[in-house]
């Protein structure tokens, strides 16, 4: 299992557009990818689940990756968060 934490910089939080991009990005991997935010958790491959977290600017998101390609997913998702959120 791999994990990292990221604090959301985007003024709108994880709004519709980045949520869509994140779901696409997460969908590239076999691993299960879970987001943990202030006590709630959601599946990064499901758009409603990601949007239901209502992640806001300044929230700290813990991304937990578990599966065969977790190393690759860790690197790519870290980059994704930095570039888009």
């Amino acid at each position, binding site marked *: 299992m791999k994990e990292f934490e990221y604090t959301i910089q985007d003024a709108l939080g994880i709004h519709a*557009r980045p949520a869509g991009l994140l779901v696409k990005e997460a969908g590239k991997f076999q691993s299960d990818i879970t987001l943990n935010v202030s006590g709630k958790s959601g599946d990064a491959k499901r758009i409603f689940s990601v949007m239901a977290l209502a992640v806001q600017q300044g929230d700290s998101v813990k991304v937990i990756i578990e599966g065969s390609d977790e190393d690759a997913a860790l690197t790519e998702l870290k980059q994704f968060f930095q570039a888009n959120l």
Partner: protein
Amino acid sequence: MTTIQGQGVCGGVAFGKLKLLRKSSGKIQRHHIEDAEKEWERFQNARETASRQLNDLYEKACNEVGEENAMIFDIHRMMLEDLDYLGSIRTYIQEQKINAESAVSMTAETFSEMFASMDNSYMQARAADVKDISDRIIAILSKNEVDGFTLNEPAIIGAEDLAPSETVQLDKSKILAFITEKGSAASHTSILARTMNIPAVIGAEGIMDDTFADTDIIVDGFTGHIYIDPDMQTVLEMQAKKQQTERQNELLAKLKGIKPVTKDGQKILLYANIGSLEDMPAVYANDAMGVGLFRSEFIFLESKTYPTEDEQFSIYKSALQKAMGKRVIIRTLDIGADKQVDYFSMPKEENPAMGVRAIRICLTRPAIFKTQLRALYRASIFGHLAIMFPMITSLSEVQQVKELCEEVKAELREEQIPFRENTELGIMIETPASAIISDKLAKEVDFFSIGTNDLTQYTLAIDRQNPDTTPFCDLHHLAILRLIHTVVENAHKAGIWTGICGELAGDLSLTELFLAMGVDELSVSPRLILPLKQKVLSCDVSEIKDNLLQKLK
């Protein structure tokens, strides 16, 4: 004439016939099914069709409004593939044995409630997206394709609410404006309207009245007003507004992003004069490169008592943040003369224009002035601030002002409150005295801004509020032009820049002369910026410069 007030979300004025778009409110019949697998398959087929439609819409929208805005249809497609969404529909069909239409409708209800209950207006608006995708599937299932409706002639669309997919499907060349009864400024419909630059008003309650259908109406997307069956006077007023907007838009389209540089390569800064925070959007819309005069007195005029340091700080901070790094020149308190504030309880003066006004009030009541300076310095870290002092007549006034600034800075340092140490300080040159000693003043400050209104009044001894003096008031008086020239020359000798922020700055018949003098910045009201930019672009001064300046001799 009937007037409806909504919320304008996209500026512009439109005239046209109102077409009411009503959705076939096909009530969904809930019924029991026998073969759940077959019903699930029927749903899956509809979902695939919907997915294909969304792909087409995505491509159409990409072409029309760009990828960024088209992304919503890609997200809709993802929603249609969301496992939680599909899982819920499947459960309804297989366990409760109900028809696919009802299963989709009930699922949509649950998911849109989840968004609607969120403590975030952006996410609340997403409930509409869930309804939109669900309606699409239901329409396909009940063979009632969403084809919006066809417009034979250009019209203004009125609707209860418009889904993004409906907005995109409408024939853009025939839509003059959008009006909706519901909707929010964060909805995709509003965003799309702004991107397509079509006037749009939301929250217009009552617009769906059948008696209004096909009547002539006027939509003002700036104010949110809708005039149904307008009277002649309104028609004339709104026509003028429409023409002005169109001229402005044509200019903007041509000039936006182009730097104001003359044909022979001389650069000049074009800034905006503003009177309150509400004017900031106009600064952008007109492509100003900064704010050349932010009149801080509105904060005092709108208040019933002295505004506190924190109140002022939050206004200055907000202005600087809204300017996103562009220079904002804030002029300190300029009251007295024609701008009176009761709570200052100034003694009555025989001749207020020459009385205790502007910097004279600030220097005689340093507590009020220092409160403003503290608020300004505290805000200085939020953008590119320049502070400007009005009505200067002597060197000692400038030195006193600078001492007060140093006192304020020392206090802030002591209190460990951050501020920008090198915040630019400038003065207005609006008295003949300051123009004549501008060589000395230039050594004390970072910039000048020439206030031609007061400079004219004081130089020509003419009260500009008295219409009887008009025959004697020559706005292009040689004395004024010489003073301006002197100020610019003295500024450049001392290595500082100078601008003009009075009405003469926007006088296009003087633009060439100002360029010949080497004026560095012109600050005008936002609506004059683009015409001024056009003028600058057409100028070629190097050849005629000497001739122009010769006229001042």
